[in-house]
């Protein structure tokens, strides 16, 4: 059992989801998975060397992760209310339309 490979696979899944999903909430879930993969690697390596410092840094990583989640969710609510959809492609299309109308 190797936790480095496990977290690497999880990181790959998260990056794949980040690149392929078009729903804003799914993109956010991908970001959460990437953060979980990073903390998993960190804690497992530290606890296998019986270090308490790994868990202490995990708390700092969690607080940063929570701050990022708060900002992303606030932006997500604003964008979804402004455009009426949470699909990235549709939002980009609307923005292009707005841009071309403004040029004319």
């Amino acid at each position, binding site marked *: *059992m*190797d*936790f*480095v*490979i*496990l977290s690497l*696979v*999880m990181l790959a*899944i*998260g990056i*794949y*989801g980040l690149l392929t*999903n078009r*729903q*804003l*909430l*799914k993109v*956010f*879930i*991908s970001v*959460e*998975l990437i953060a*979980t993969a990073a*903390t*998993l690697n960190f*804690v*497992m*390596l*530290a*606890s*296998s*060397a*019986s*270090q*308490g*410092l*790994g*868990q*202490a*840094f*995990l*708390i*700092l990583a*969690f*607080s*940063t*992760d*929570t*701050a990022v*989640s*708060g*900002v992303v*969710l*606030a932006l*997500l*609510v*604003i964008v*979804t209310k402004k455009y009426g*959809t*949470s699909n990235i492609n549709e939002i980009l299309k609307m923005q292009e339309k707005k841009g071309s109308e403004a040029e004319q």
Partner: protein
Amino acid sequence: MILEILSIGLLVSACLALFLDEVVYSVAALAGTFLFTALLYYVNGAIYAAIFQFVVGVGTLAILFLSGEMLSDKSTKKTSPKKLAALIGAGVVLSLPAIFLSVSSSTGVYSDASFGDALWNLSGVDVVLQALVIFTVALGIAIILYERRSVGK
């Protein structure tokens, strides 16, 4: 054996969280991911990390369930059983390298710092600064949403 089962569950729930069509179900699968991660920490002896993972996971999931209900399109199609089986199979296959391969090597860097020592003596300033960052971020989000509301009026 327990670690292998937990790692398979972790990757299966991660695949389900990303590729299920219904947002609420994918948030439920993300709950499974957080739970399996917390269990992995607990089995490996990182009890504090398991507790924090669990608590932060519960908070994140509560917000995600709310926003998922609020923001998702109601007319999304349902996931077919074939796709569900394919996702579970992909999760199991992806967890095989972690179970059978090994790349780790001992670095020889060991310290006897306990969790309490490490948190308050070695990184106490970091903890206080992080609390400040969280407070600033909360204030920033409140300002963003307040301005938005006043512009809407």
